[in-house]
């Protein structure tokens, strides 16, 4: 090595060391979220939603794993840099003791849906989180599929049996299965069973998990699966197979369908999820904003939460994320096609006579993942492995029961309220 290269090498080695040591100090508010993670939504949140706030906000969306780990680390360390947490109701419910009471935030002139505010109290008498935005799951179809809709069927009031029949005709006439279901690793399949299939058939998510009615629901789904594109086990976001034409009819979260409507608005229609014997089960998704007790500047965090609740911010959030306002914010007339189509489908689904809302799991703490796994396992065993429905449900019901007892979680809608842990019959 010549002395010159040696000098260069040591300079190259020393420079990053110096930089590595230099911590950065800034007055940015850290907005730690596991929502709006898709990169375009992140961009829109930063540029269109948070840019109007009086102060600098660092919006950092995360996958749930690192998201939770970081929150727990800061709680345990007793100090942290997170200013505001944005997450789903179920995730916020795990840390009820660690959030600041938000009832002091001035919301004059804003009407927040009272049911959502109540959820935000997490069973305490403090406002643990404020509702941030809401979403839902709907069906989407390529307009080509409507040509095969049997006469007399109303797309806005389908039953599951009618859906199966429609998909059968579609598969037979076009020569390949055209239904799509987000059953991939990133897909939200468990929400369909928890919030749509079981409530519609058994009127329950937990208590009647292995009832005869639930068996009937799974039998229907097994039939539907015959007309489902087998690549569904790879789908995470149904907008992609819809746009590619691999799937003509499908079920997914509105934020995961929006791209199809925005790219080709004339090619797609949105409609409510079908109804079963007990009603039209659906699962609203509620995201909330909370402030950790160790936030660096609680007053600044409060100001940010208050900003997020303002009507203009709520509308901007809708445009950025396809999550709808939780307040009475007035929607502008020139909404993008996705918001128009999906919003109409949600309204049709939630305001019908047979509407049967099912809430996201409440009070499960960190057992939420295992709770989801019960439904995913049931799906994989019944539908993918073709095992006996009764036997699978009985075995999964035992797991579910012990989870409920371990979490000591009382029932939530649509199950009947319970004293003590929610029973599994």
């Amino acid at each position, binding site marked *: 090595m010549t002395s010159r290269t040696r000098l260069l090498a040591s300079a*190259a*080695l020393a420079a*990053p*060391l110096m*930089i*590595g*040591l*230099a*911590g*950065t100090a*800034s007055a*940015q508010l*850290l907005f730690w979220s596991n929502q709006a*993670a*898709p*990169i*375009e939504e*992140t*961009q829109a949140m*930063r540029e269109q939603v948070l840019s109007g706030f009086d102060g600098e906000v*660092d919006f*950092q*969306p*995360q*996958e749930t*794993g*690192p998201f939770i*780990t*970081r929150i*727990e*680390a*800061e709680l*345990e*360390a007793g*100090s*942290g*840099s997170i200013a505001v947490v944005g997450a789903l109701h179920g995730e916020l419910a795990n840390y009820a003791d660690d959030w600041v009471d938000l009832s002091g935030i001035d919301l004059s002139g804003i009407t927040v849906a009272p049911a959502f505010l109540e959820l935000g109290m997490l069973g305490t008498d403090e406002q643990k989180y404020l509702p941030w935005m809401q979403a839902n799951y709907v069906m989407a179809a390529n307009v080509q599929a409507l040509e095969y809709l049997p006469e007399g069927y109303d797309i806005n009031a389908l039953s599951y049996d009618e859906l199966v029949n429609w998909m059968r005709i579609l598969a037979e006439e076009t020569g390949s299965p055209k239904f799509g279901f987000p059953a991939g690793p*990133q897909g939200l399949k468990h929400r369909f069973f928890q919030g749509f299939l079981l409530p519609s058939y058994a009127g329950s998510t937990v208590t009647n998990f292995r009832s005869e009615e639930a068996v009937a629901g799974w039998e229907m789904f097994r039939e539907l699966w015959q007309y489902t594109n087998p690549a569904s086990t790879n789908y*995470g*976001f149904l*907008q*992609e197979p819809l*746009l*590619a*034409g691999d799937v003509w009819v499908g079920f997914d979260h509105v934020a995961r369908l929006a*791209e199809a409507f925005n*790219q080709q608005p004339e090619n797609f229609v949105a409609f409510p999820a079908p109804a079963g014997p007990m009603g039209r089960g659906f699962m609203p998704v509620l995201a909330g904003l909370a402030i950790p007790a160790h936030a660096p500047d609680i007053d600044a965090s409060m100001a940010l939460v208050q900003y997020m609740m303002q009507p203009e911010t709520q509308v901007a959030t809708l445009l950025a994320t396809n999550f709808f306002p939780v307040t009475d914010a007035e929607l502008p007339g020139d909404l993008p096609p996705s918001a128009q189509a999906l919003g109409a489908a949600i309204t049709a689904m939630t305001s019908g006579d047979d509407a049967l809302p099912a809430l996201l799991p409440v009070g499960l703490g960190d057992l939420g993942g295992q709770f989801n796994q019960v439904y995913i396992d049931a799906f994989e065993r019944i539908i993918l492995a073709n095992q006996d429905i009764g036997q699978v449900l009985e075995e999964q019901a035992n797991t579910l029961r012990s989870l409920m007892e371990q979490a000591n979680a009382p029932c939530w809608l649509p199950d009947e309220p319970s004293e003590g842990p929610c029973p599994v019959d």
Partner: protein
Amino acid sequence: MSTLAPTDEPRAVGDTRRAGRWVFITATVMLMAWVLVPIYLLFVNTLSSPSEVSGFPKTGLPSFDFASVEFFLSFSGVARALWNSVVVAVLTMVLSIGIGAPAGYALSRFDFPGKEVFRMVVVMTRAFPLPLLALPLAVMFIRVGLDDTALGLAFVHTVLALPFAVLITFSLFSGIPIELEEAAWTLGCNRLQAFIKVVMPLILPGLVASAVFAFTISWNEVFAAAVLTIENRTLTAFLVQSLNVSPLHLKFAGGTALVVPALIFIFAVRKYLFAMWGIANR
């Protein structure tokens, strides 16, 4: 195999050699395709419009639509995250060689009690999944003030890269006869001088290879980076999580953004790598 083929006569040696060449060429082409085809598809899709990416059939040729690329260039923080990634990766490289090479040297040159246990324990650091370690690490980092610094993250990545650094340098040093060092000592070098003047030039290509390895380990690590850094986020932590749930055309563009810097780096150090495999390319 009941009857012998009538033409089953001995073949000329040239035939066999030709067949061998064919096998060699086919294997080479396949290996190259294995590496190059995915990279090619990545680039083609990056330079295609969203509808072409999700559409079918594919042309296989880029249409030079720069919308996805432009989106990335305008996505705030990409440049900063790229810089952080480089800083952390270089720090990891320096630390893991700085700590790993002496350990490898000691393992190959000295006998000390617990040598076998030490070799085992070094590998053990890879036995624990990061999601398990990340929480206590983050708590500790917040308490000691290493949280959200490139150095703190580089420490974690060094732990991940260290087993490879130790084991690779161990075999490198073992390949250098101790007699060479002894000769240098008899000619007036002390231990350090002998190491720098005699051993170092011989193992340099190998050292570079294990440094590249440390670099890629750090470059590709997501979980610890996502938990332990916030403002000094690395590119992988910054992008991978968001890309996971982003539309296909942006996944391709982001994939390219992640691959290109690593490709450039490996290209820059390629002559050391090739030298290790005995191909003179100087």
